[in-house]
């Protein structure tokens, strides 16, 4: 980056005719305006420089609430990473603040001492947090007392996250949208939070008293204390850090941190000093130009248009479009007419949406009100001349998508107004999609209109994910995804394509599983590289496809499979499970969860010798040694001298058992012996997903067999029930009964056949809990139990081949399969980083 003024021609070597556009403010409005300008071929007219005093690319400020709450990572909220500027030939001066605009010389002066000439200027300086005067709030003229925060920028947000660690109590001043989001975020971080609000009603800018009272109860139900009608007079501190606040009535609330969210103030200092007309914000005309200077445009929260100053993103998308049309001359008649404002509270568990009027204002306005305080539900609707002009939804926002569109675009409303609030035959959203005006905004976070989506579909994108990638619709808070899907569907005339690749077994090889398997067999492809060479477009390898192909080939060829280590995920390369700090976890085989004092002694010795930071019992009844360094793996295995438990792969994992008839007074079947036998036979078998099994000795089901990929339950009369497709992880599902059999031998046969059928026909990473319902239990029963397709014998034989090909991967420890197989990949990191217990 250079700080000297340069003529645009010098930077590009050609097009000396381009004039210079300078944008002050690298926030949501400024960059959106630049994007709109680029979209209108502005790069041919302007050499663009963007100043931003935050040292980052442009990020989605809205999502700071999610970052604080921990549901988004800071790295996930960038709208335009720094590379975007380079790629678009934009001179980004990040971390540089403009301190003066000289309108007569047409230059801006920045705090790094640089000056830059402009032909056109865009002011997009946004707002800052407002700190009401309070004793003790400031450490000095520019520094807040330690522990006091505003909530506006990424730095505010990271500062709060860091400071909150280990703190117990927070107070948030301000019970508006941002204050409540900040409170919930801090609460998610484990703090006890109290919200202090000067007005009697929470979110009083958007809500009436009834709605506010219901909101208050929902917030309190989350465990957040609310004080209303309290004026904070003092910030108390000790040793320079905040310790509490004091109200005007003298009462105090102790706290370890304080967030002030008492409103925002537009950043207008630059404009004032430059002699532009500033009232509440910088006054602009209908082209978003300063009323004093036709070369200066103003956009976003620092602009005042027809008396309105907006504090939400939707209006600034509209402003940016008008600005770009006018500035580039694409449409010199483009005018901004003002925006309607709709708000949604982004606090999980407390649904609030509000738009337009709170109450009827004219005598013939229609007003529909529904209130159910006990259930925390409150809804109102204001209709004027048959158009929706206001709506409030608390507690149930299921109708918000339609209402927002109706509000934005003045859609015709159903005669029965009540159906605007409840599902009583409201126009279905498909009708909504058809009726939506072209410029209706579908994605409010990224400002994507129906027309933009439609033209994207007409341009050939026929998948929802494709449209989303191309337009960024649905990539903000995600609440518009349903509507987006419907608009895409409507635009494609019902011909929405499933992503073509959605049916492929792996993303890099364009075939569904059956076809892929047929080709692999026909062409005798025994290794992953040979599959890419023969079947991938342009024979290109694809990193994302390697694991799935390796698993498939291993399943298909068993002993004849040609192992290529680079096609394996790291876990499968070193036969251990990678942990967050790059160390590994080691789980020795412990069939059926049965162990011996000798094994335990060995494990204990190994744990001591390698200073294993954490020894943990797994959910699958085994012992996990966590925090092992990669380079120690071979020695650990040698010392353990136990086979691998395969706790790291997409493979057969464990068989959980209960003690059954051995010791349990209720047991009716020898579940332990059967579990051990199953694990002995199928250990290490590779598959499209993990396979976790269990055998339990009676229907009391102590081994939780009903929620396993395959679970066996002993029942009275020497019989065994076999359940398949159960799960109890991220997804919970009770297994379906596949068969009831009378001998352990039959259990073994059906288990093998079922697992083989799963291995052959499930998609990559598709667990049985989705595969079983997809195939249908009747179909599975027909194939696996009744052999309706005549393939049982083949399935059994294939499984036998796989069983015969078993070899304990931990023997790799003796003779590494590749050079440096166990060499550390992060040699300089101090390990372990996971907590030592």
């Amino acid at each position, binding site marked *: 980056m250079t700080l000297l003024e340069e003529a645009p021609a010098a930077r590009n070597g050609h097009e000396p005719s381009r004039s210079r556009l300078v944008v002050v403010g690298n926030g949501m409005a400024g960059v959106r305006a630049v994007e709109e300008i680029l979209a209108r071929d502005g790069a041919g007219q302007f050499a663009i420089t963007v100043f931003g005093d935050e040292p980052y690319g442009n990020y989605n400020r809205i999502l700071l609430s999610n970052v604080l709450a921990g549901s988004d*990572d800071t*790295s*996930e909220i*960038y709208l335009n*990473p720094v*590379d*975007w500027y*380079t790629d678009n030939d934009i001179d980004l001066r990040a971390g540089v603040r403009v301190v003066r605009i000289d309108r007569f010389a047409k230059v801006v002066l920045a705090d790094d001492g640089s000056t830059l000439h402009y032909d056109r200027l865009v002011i997009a300086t946004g707002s800052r947090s407002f700190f009401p005067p309070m004793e003790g709030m400031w450490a000095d003229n520019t520094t807040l007392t330690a522990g006091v925060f505003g909530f506006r920028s990424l730095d505010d947000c990271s500062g709060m996250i860091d400071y909150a660690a280990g703190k117990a109590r927070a107070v948030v001043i301000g019970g508006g949208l941002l204050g409540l989001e900040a409170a919930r975020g801090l609460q998610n971080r484990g703090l006890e939070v109290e919200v202090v609000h000067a007005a009697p009603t929470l979110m009083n800018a958007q809500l009436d008293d009834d709605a506010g009272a219901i909101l208050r109860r929902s917030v309190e139900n989350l465990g957040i204390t609310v004080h209303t009608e309290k004026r904070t007079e003092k910030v108390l501190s000790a040793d320079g850090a905040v310790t509490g606040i004091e109200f005007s009535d003298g009462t105090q609330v102790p706290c370890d941190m304080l967030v002030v969210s008492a409103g925002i103030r537009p950043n207008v200092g630059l404009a004032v000093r430059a002699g532009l007309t500033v009232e509440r914000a910088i006054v602009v005309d209908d082209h978003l130009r300063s009323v004093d200077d036709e070369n200066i445009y103003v956009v976003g929260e620092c602009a005042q248009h027809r008396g309105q100053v907006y504090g939400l993103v939707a209006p600034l998308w509209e402003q940016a479009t008008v600005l770009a049309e006018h500035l580039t001359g694409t449409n010199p008649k483009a005018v901004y007419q003002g925006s309607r404002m709709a708000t949604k509270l982004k606090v999980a568990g407390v649904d609030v949406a509000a738009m337009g009027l709170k109450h009827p204002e004219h005598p013939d306005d229609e007003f529909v009100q529904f209130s159910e305080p006990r259930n925390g539900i409150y809804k109102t609707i204001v209709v004027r001349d048959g158009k929706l002009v206001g709506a409030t939804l608390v507690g149930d926002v299921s109708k918000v998508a339609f209402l927002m569109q109706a509000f934005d675009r003045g859609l015709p409303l159903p005669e029965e107004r009540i159906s605007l609030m409840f599902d009583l035959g409201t126009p279905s959203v498909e009708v909504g999609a058809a009726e939506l005006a072209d410029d209706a905004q579908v994605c409010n976070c990224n400002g994507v209109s129906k027309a933009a989506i439609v033209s994207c579909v007409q341009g050939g994108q026929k998948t929802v994910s494709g449209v989303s990638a191309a337009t960024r619709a649905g990539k903000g808070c995600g609440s518009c995804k349903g509507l987006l899907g419907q608009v895409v569907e409507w635009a494609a005339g019902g011909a929405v394509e499933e992503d073509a690749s959605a049916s492929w077994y792996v993303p*890099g090889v364009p075939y569904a599983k059956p076809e892929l398997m047929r080709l692999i067999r026909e062409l005798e492809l025994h290794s992953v*590289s040979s599959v890419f060479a023969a079947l991938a477009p342009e024979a*290109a*390898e*694809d*990193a*994302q496809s*390697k*694991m799935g192909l390796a698993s498939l080939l291993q399943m298909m060829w068993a002993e004849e499979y040609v192992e*290529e*280590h*680079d*096609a*394996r*995920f*790291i*876990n499968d*390369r070193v036969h251990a499970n*990678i942990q*967050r*700090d*790059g160390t590994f976890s080691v789980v020795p085989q412990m069939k059926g969860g049965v162990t011996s004092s000798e094994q335990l002694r060995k494990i204990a010795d190994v744990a001591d010798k390698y200073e294993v930071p954490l020894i943990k019992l797994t959910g699958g009844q085994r012992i996990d040694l966590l925090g092992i360094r990669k380079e120690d793996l071979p020695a650990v295995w040698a010392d353990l001298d136990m086979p691998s438990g395969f706790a790291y792969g997409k493979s057969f994992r464990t068989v959980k058992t209960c003690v059954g008839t051995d010791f349990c007074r209720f047991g009716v079947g020898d579940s332990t012996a059967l579990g051990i036998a199953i694990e002995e036979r199928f250990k290490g078998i590779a598959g499209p997903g993990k396979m976790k099994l269990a055998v339990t000795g009676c229907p009391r089901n102590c081994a939780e067999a009903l929620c396993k990929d395959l679970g066996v339950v002993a029942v009275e009369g020497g019989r065994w029930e076999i359940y398949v497709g159960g799960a109890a992880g991220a997804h919970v599902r009770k297994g379906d009964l596949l068969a009831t059999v009378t001998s352990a031998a039959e259990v073994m046969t059906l288990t093998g056949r079922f697992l083989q059928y799963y291995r052959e026909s499930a998609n990559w990473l598709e667990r049985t809990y989705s595969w079983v319902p997809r195939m249908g239990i009747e179909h599975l029963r027909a194939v696996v139990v009744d052999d309706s397709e005549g393939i049982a014998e083949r399935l059994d034989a294939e499984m036998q081949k796989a069983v015969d090909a078993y070899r304990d991967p931990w023997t790799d420890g003796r003779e590494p399969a*590749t*050079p*440096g197989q166990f*060499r*550390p*990949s*992060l*040699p*300089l*990191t101090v390990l372990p*980083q996971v907590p030592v217990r």
Partner: protein
Amino acid sequence: MEEVDAPVVGHLEDIPVGEGRAFAVAGDQVAVFRLRDGSLRALDAVCPHRGGPLADGLTDERVVVCPLHGYTYDLATGQEMSSGATGVCAYQVSADEGGAIRIGPRIAR
């Protein structure tokens, strides 16, 4: 790729074809990848997301996928491809006829 003039950090034989290994270079950790077409690539060894070991990632001719959460980096430029997150630095790297690997300066992006 042009020859790099720098101390030898390792040998081609240290890196199986299609995989990566990490080397320490003047205080930096650099992951060197040996692609199936025989060429070499070098990136910072530590994933900027949560510190994942990139040398342990799956690769193809264009990218390496971090083993921890799947962020995907362009092997030639270090750019993050899955969501435009922060990228890593790419380095010049070469092996001479005897297979000695040298890691050169960062490649400016």
